[in-house]
């Protein structure tokens, strides 16, 4: 069974909000739209977004890290928002695991938003129905688009390639490999919601420098033996290139 999901690489997210704006643009003009903005140019603006980028500071000065943290619906495999819906407007698609809202059935009781620990659902104050990330279902299933464009708008917009998209149930997929290789994790595992979206943790960036990287093996200055010998005249790393 397919479970489409996003894998977000916190190691490379630079917090540029390109995913936020492209999400807003695509979804406000797509089948999920329009995403209402109340008083957009007045004193108390308020908007609906399916995706937000938040910023956290981890550690104590001077040993701090700034972590940019994109957050959207996690398309849980056991979504607590779906069974609580009294109308059946909130549902999880069997074929690809995307959690969606049927806007024509939603009565706007907001109970599903109470039942989501991640705050992923946002009520549309104009249409008076609950809205949420659709994983760009109208893009990813659109056969008219070229294959490489059948991805959520946020994924296509990310300049740092911090967002991966694919089937987390397929062990050979790019996302599954990333989760396995880089210890991808889920948010708030304590509630057993089993989010499909995963996050890749920060990595320590290290460079290994070998002595032979600093000096050429065949340095002509040392051929006559007058300079001190380097001691690694044999075959170097480059001779065993893989």
């Amino acid at each position, binding site marked *: 069974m397919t479970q489409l999901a996003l894998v977000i690489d916190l190691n490379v997210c630079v917090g540029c909000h390109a995913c936020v704006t492209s999400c807003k643009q695509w979804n406000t003009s797509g089948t999920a739209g329009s995403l209402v903005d109340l008083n957009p140019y007045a004193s108390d603006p308020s908007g609906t977004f399916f995706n937000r980028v*938040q910023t956290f500071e981890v550690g104590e000065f001077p040993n701090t890290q700034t972590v940019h943290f994109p957050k959207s619906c996690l398309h849980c495999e056991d979504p607590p928002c779906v069974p609580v819906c009294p109308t059946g407007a909130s549902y999880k698609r069997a074929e690809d695991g995307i959690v969606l809202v049927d806007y024509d059935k*939603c009565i706007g009781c907001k109970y599903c938003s109470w039942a989501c620990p991640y705050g992923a659902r*946002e009520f549309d104050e104009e249409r008076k129905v609950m809205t949420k990330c659709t994983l760009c279902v109208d893009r990813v299933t659109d056969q008219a688009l070229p294959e490489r464009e059948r991805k959520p708008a946020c994924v296509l917009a990310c300049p740092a390639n911090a967002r991966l998209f694919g089937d987390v149930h397929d062990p050979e997929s790019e996302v599954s490999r990333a989760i396995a290789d880089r210890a991808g994790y889920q948010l708030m595992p304590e509630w057993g919601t089993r989010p499909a979206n995963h996050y890749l943790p920060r990595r320590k960036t290290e460079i290994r420098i070998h002595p032979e990287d600093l000096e050429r093996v065949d340095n002509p200055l040392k051929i006559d033996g007058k300079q001190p010998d380097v001691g690694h005249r044999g075959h170097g790393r480059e001779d065993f290139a893989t």
Partner: protein
Amino acid sequence: MNPPFSAIFLTTLIGAGQGLFLMLFGAEVLLGPVATLPQARLFLAIGSLVSLALTAGGLIASFFHLGQPQRAWRGMAMWRTSWLAREGIALPLFMAGVFAYGLIQWFDLGGSLVIGALTAIVCLVLYVCTGMIYVSIRFIQEWSTPLTLVNYLLLGCASGATLATVLAAFSAPGLVIPFAILAAVFKVAGLLTRSASLLRNARLKPRSTLQSAIGIKHPRIVQKAQGFMGGSFNTREFFHQRAPQFLRSVKWFFLLMAFVLPLLLLVLGVTQGSPGLLLLAFATQYFGLVAERWFFFAQANHPQNLYYQTIS
């Protein structure tokens, strides 16, 4: 949570209406043949009408909670999984039962015990549905306890019994004392269980932390930006926007208004034989229960608030 007044009025009004009906039916069962006298039937019919009016008021209040009230009928579809849908079925069923019970009493049609018993069962089911709507959200830890359900039942019965005492004082004086005793018992029991839930909630340790919310295991994490500077549903719906001191005063206010004062007024009203004081007892208690329900919502700490702590 940001307390929604629609849900506050829904739960307090139907709670009182359900409690009143249980008292009426209990009185009919206990009175036996006396309950078939015209005077008793008139009392039970008027009581049913008041219970119906209260539940109808609650139903109307609930419509104000919906974004699309004209589709409210759809809200019964998912009764297999959703406690809200179950409540949406049980409430009209209960109202129909009370209506039938009142008609039977008014026109002396017979079969009131059967209809009354069935309606009483639906009434208890409705209490369970209302409570479970909150109990079943497992990560709102303040709500997710059987005490929530017990409180809905006992506080509803307490206000219903007080109202039954008021009605009896006007049209069935013989029932004032038993109803008043029941009202006092339910008030004391409700005070005990509500205090128990207050004590429990004061000691709660949140299971979700900023660490589990973003998955970074470090003791010191501070949010620097929530990602937007304007308002949003997430900042409005899940926080009451009031100071902790205000919450504390509401707590003491409702303990006084919903339990202590009505109990004193009830005792005074019964000893003085004054229906006015009894009515005041019910009004005080109802107002106190509105404050109690406001506090019930405001105290609930939703884990999504972890993500929305700093504007920038």
